[in-house]
């Protein structure tokens, strides 16, 4: 039971962070299909930081620096989307798809090159961070608390406040809904869209590191992040682009993911003897069905995916 809670929370944290990232990007008017690639890059940044931090660094510092590193790399990588989508008016879906392919390929090439440079016999694309991961964990009576869960909650609160209570949030949403209107009241739409995409880079990168430390102490970058970026997109849509609903959706998806792994601990479920593929498919099927019933009144930002051109009326 505790395990189910623990894994629900950790999976939900990943999904929540990344989905909130997508939410910011889309509220600014840019569709971010490239979250998967951004996650890989964020994971890479964090993993590198943990690998190279000297042993004996205080846990707090490890967590802080690791988080910052993944944020930084996610942010830089998301520039690829921002530049293409905002300045060059590229097709956002295409660029996002390219970023997903590029993220895994680039991270693998980089890690392999790094490993081989350090030791010619080491051809793996794996980074180990045994001690680094421990810094994130606190054992609370058998419940393995991960500081990232707290980060996710903080991100949720901040996202809610920023989107609904601040000037920035109001302006951001205006750019995703009606960029011409925003422009006419003196808001720099390009800058806002940059901000939206870069925030999605920050949160996506953070989600990446949370994902790879969620269960293991080494990561093989060839494997990317196994579709979590796409799942997060589903969570975002499921949550109707609203932070609180996204949080609920993330919990739901996290719950199913966790359940798929620990179901054999429940007599009822293990006696059902469902193949594991059922549990794997479940989140996707549910979101598809829910989408079918909710999309008529979809609250997607109206101008998302449409490049903003100042000259056009």
């Amino acid at each position, binding site marked *: 039971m505790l395990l189910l809670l623990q894994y629900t929370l950790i999976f939900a944290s990943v999904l929540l962070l990344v989905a909130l990232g997508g939410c910011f990007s889309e509220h600014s008017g840019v569709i971010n299909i490239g979250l998967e690639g951004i996650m890989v890059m964020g994971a890479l940044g964090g993993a590198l930081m943990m690998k190279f931090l000297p042993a004996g660094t205080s846990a707090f510092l490890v967590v802080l620096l690791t988080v910052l590193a993944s944020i930084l790399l996610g942010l830089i990588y998301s520039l690829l989307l921002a530049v293409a989508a905002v300045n060059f008016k590229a097709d956002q879906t295409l660029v996002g798809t390219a970023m997903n*392919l590029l993220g895994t390929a680039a991270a693998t090439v980089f890690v392999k090159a790094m490993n081989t440079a350090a030791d010619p016999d080491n051809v793996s694309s794996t980074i180990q961070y045994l001690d680094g991961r421990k810094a994130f964990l606190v054992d609370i009576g058998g419940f393995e608390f991960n500081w990232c869960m707290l980060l996710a909650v903080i991100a949720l609160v901040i996202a809610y406040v920023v989107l609904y209570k601040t000037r920035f949030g109001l302006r951001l949403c205006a750019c995703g809904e009606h960029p011409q209107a925003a422009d006419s009241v003196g808001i720099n739409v390009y800058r806002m869209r940059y901000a939206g995409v870069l925030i999605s880079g920050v949160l996506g990168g953070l989600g990446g590191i949370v994902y790879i430390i969620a269960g293991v102490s080494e990561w093989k970058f060839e494997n990317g992040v196994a579709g979590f970026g796409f799942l997060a997109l589903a969570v975002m849509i499921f949550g109707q682009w609203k932070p609180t609903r996204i949080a609920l959706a993330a919990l739901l998806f996290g719950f199913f993911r966790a359940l798929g792994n620990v179901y054999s601990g429940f007599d009822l479920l293990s006696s059902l003897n469902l193949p594991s593929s059922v549990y794997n498919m479940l989140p996707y099927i549910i979101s598809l069905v829910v*989408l079918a019933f909710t999309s008529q009144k979809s609250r997607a930002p109206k101008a998302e995916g449409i490049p903003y051109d100042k000259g056009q009326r």
Partner: protein
Amino acid sequence: MRREKTSLLRSKGVQSLLASLLCIVIGLLIGYIVLLIINPAGAGEAIRTIVENFLYYPSAAARLRYFGNTLVKTAPLLMCSLSVLFAYKVGLFNIGAAGQYVVGAGASLYVALGLGMPWYVCLVAAIAAGAILGAISGILKAYRNVNEVISCIMLNWISLYLVNALLTNVKETASPYTFTLSSTNPDAILPSLGLGALFANNQYVTIAIPLVILVSVAVWILLEKTKLGYELRATGCNKYAAQYCGMKEKRNIILTMAIAGGLAGMGAATLFLSGFEQWQTTQSAVPAMGFNGIAAAFLGGLNPIGSIFSSYFIQHITNGGAYVDKTMYSAQISDLISALIIYLCGFVLFFKVFMNGWLDRREEKRRAKEDASGSEEGGKA
């Protein structure tokens, strides 16, 4: 003379071609720089190896044979790119080509291995399976307003798990691979009609290759020359106008996705029914073929004929990547380069706008000059 050159540069096809070439060149250049950074010693040779692909082999027979292999894998890629392109022309982004490819593979192999049907039945099954999956996205879009990109992403994963589960029925327990066609049901292998002989007896070269080229041409004709194409494109460009003039816009959306899905499904069949590959039932990621199809479609300037060349090119460098010296560079380097090229395809529109702007400015200058000289002459007279 000059004017002719200008109008040539203004032609859409030429512009697309130039833009695509630019993507390729920049993509390779960045790839080369990455190689240089990793290991300067072998970078030149590595990039040449990638570009050479089958020319890596010294013997003519081997070159021919592996040219054949590249073609064999180009066929499904081309079909996936046609699938993406077809939908895109009709205003839909078929990111689900990947999943449609998966169900195409599942259907063709199951019908071949599980039901023992001949190749044409398998082919039809693959097309039907892909079409059904595509149609699901189309129906969700037309009747429930579900964004096709999202439904396609979901369906990609669902199809992967379903097909893995289905195909476990047609494999040995001890192996994750499905049975080979040659041992189980040779009738399901696409006929070669002597084509294999042309490629130094490459057993995998089948009618699939001419078939997909025919399909490309057919897609082009369908889109540009037929009433159906006229309707579908109109729906894609402006579904309200389509509705206004009495087209069945919902049906058209579904039909488009079904055709796109059928193309991707058929793509899978062209590969798996050639016996080239067996399905691995433990795959945990959707095959990249469908995503690469997006790249090929855009690189080909969203033109079915252009797709033939861009698909071949992408497959060519992907295969070429296998020959790069692995002790120096990792195997993912060719993935990196093709991902870069896809990314750069996003800038094609900008390239074109830029090129037109440049032409405009040049023309204006020329006109200004002509005006100036004209008025001068007028002044003299």
